[in-house]
């Protein structure tokens, strides 16, 4: 692989849905959206509500087909024209949903092990890896608990490491910490950054919180209203490791916040 080639390229992506009667098409939800992501980059994406953020992630995750444009992974198109979608791109793309999507009938550890079971990779080494991850986010001792017995923050942690456990090179995150209280949220952001710095996955993180986008990302993309495209691409030059609790005090923060806020309407 050419070192300079981006890991993921999104080129002229567009999406519109059939109308309810199926005879015509809705207006474009996303149109002419292009960006690329380097290996190991943490990209945060911010946009107004209704900007088709989830639609974008679904296309990246290969659970929905674009109406036009192309997605390339390591320089190769992910899908031949008209070919079937392959959700998750053969486990190359992980997805952390807005809701935790834990299976309620499985204990925490069995939920974390689910992807490995699905991929037929359940062995002692992968179990040990799951346990290490559980410990890293403070879920040790809760292995045998069912999701309804965990707090919202713990369920999010479980969902996060369920994606990390099978080590996909790209992880998509759809406002994963949106529904949490401020305290839990900062803890989870810290957990996420620590795990990311240890493993250096490529992360595309959608949020509607400008401060969160700046605090976490190497780069922040700003989406327009529908038809959605990229209207801002900001490099976040705050050195790592970052102290998330004092991120507002970093000198670059105020300037970035103002610039981005001016674009997000």
């Amino acid at each position, binding site marked *: 692989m050419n070192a300079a080639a981006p890991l993921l390229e999104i080129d002229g992506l567009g999406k519109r849905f059939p109308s309810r009667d199926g005879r015509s098409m809705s207006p474009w939800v996303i149109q002419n959206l292009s960006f690329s992501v380097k290996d190991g980059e943490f990209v945060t994406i911010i946009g107004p509500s209704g900007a088709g953020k989830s639609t974008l992630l679904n296309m990246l995750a290969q*659970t929905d087909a674009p109406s036009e444009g192309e997605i390339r992974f390591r320089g190769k198109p992910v899908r031949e024209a008209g070919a079937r979608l392959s959700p*998750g791109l053969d486990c190359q793309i992980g997805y952390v*949903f807005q809701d935790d*999507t834990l299976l309620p*009938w499985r*204990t925490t550890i069995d939920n974390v092990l689910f*992807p490995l079971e*699905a991929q037929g990779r359940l062995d002692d080494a992968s179990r040990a890896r799951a346990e290490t991850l559980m410990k890293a986010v403070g879920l040790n001792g809760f292995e045998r608990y*069912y999701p309804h017995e965990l707090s919202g923050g713990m369920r999010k942690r479980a969902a996060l490491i369920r994606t990390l456990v099978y080590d996909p090179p790209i992880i998509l995150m759809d406002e994963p910490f949106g529904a949490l209280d401020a305290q839990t949220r900062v803890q989870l952001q810290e957990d996420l950054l620590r795990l990311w710095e240890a493993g250096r996955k490529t992360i595309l993180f959608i949020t509607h919180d400008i401060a969160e986008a700046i605090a976490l990302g190497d780069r922040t993309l700003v989406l327009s209203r529908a038809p959605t495209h990229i209207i801002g691409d900001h490099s976040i030059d705050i050195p790592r490791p970052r102290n998330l609790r004092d991120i507002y005090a970093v000198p670059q923060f105020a300037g970035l916040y103002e610039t981005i806020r001016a674009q997000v309407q």
Partner: protein
Amino acid sequence: MHKARTVLDRVLVVAGVIALWQMASLSAGAYWVPAPWPVLKTLWAMAQSGALARHASYTFQAAAWGFLIGGLPGAVLPFILRRMPRLSAILDPYLVGGYGIPKLALAPLFILWFGIGIESKIAVVASVVFFLVFFNTTAGVRAIDPKLVQMARLVGASELLIARRVIWPSAVPFIFAGLRVSTPYAIGGAVIAELISSNRGLGYLVQLGAMNFKTVEVFAAILAITLIVIGANALVNGIERRLLRWRPANALNKDAASGGM
């Protein structure tokens, strides 16, 4: 403490029912409404002679076989139809129609087809149980959170694994709701089929007692049927509790569709 209190209250209710029963017997006359004690004595005598076991096991067998023969396809068919929306759309009105048929009205037909042996009773029970389990399971298959299925696909699960590990477990509570509702109907269906034509079973005992004007035997047989229904219900609930340990306590006993016969 809470549990002990419930048990105590239940004992009180039983005592109240027995007292009312005794009063009814006194006011209507023991011939029409035999008193609790003679009924219990008759039941005990039937138990000792082996008659109770013989007739009860016949009824129980008819109910159990019907439960299995009706319940199994009722629980499996919705999973197959989920993958075949066209077939499902074609069959839907007929299944709803079948659900609506009063199954007991079919009993004479089943007796003509299968004879007065146990087969016709099994057929009645199966036809009742099938629809109850089928519609509950269908509701369960439809209630699956599509996000969970999407998640499973994304992490590389095959369709078979999704069916076994995602769709099946999320439908189990609904299947059990169907089974729980079906249990009394299964036993009731067997009994009523026996009433119509049989020479064995608890329904036959009811019929025989009534023909001989021995209301005390009718009451004893009905009491035995009631006890079997309670026992079978406890069995289904016990299995359900074991299988559904993952559910929050207040979610149990919530999502049953009821049915008719």
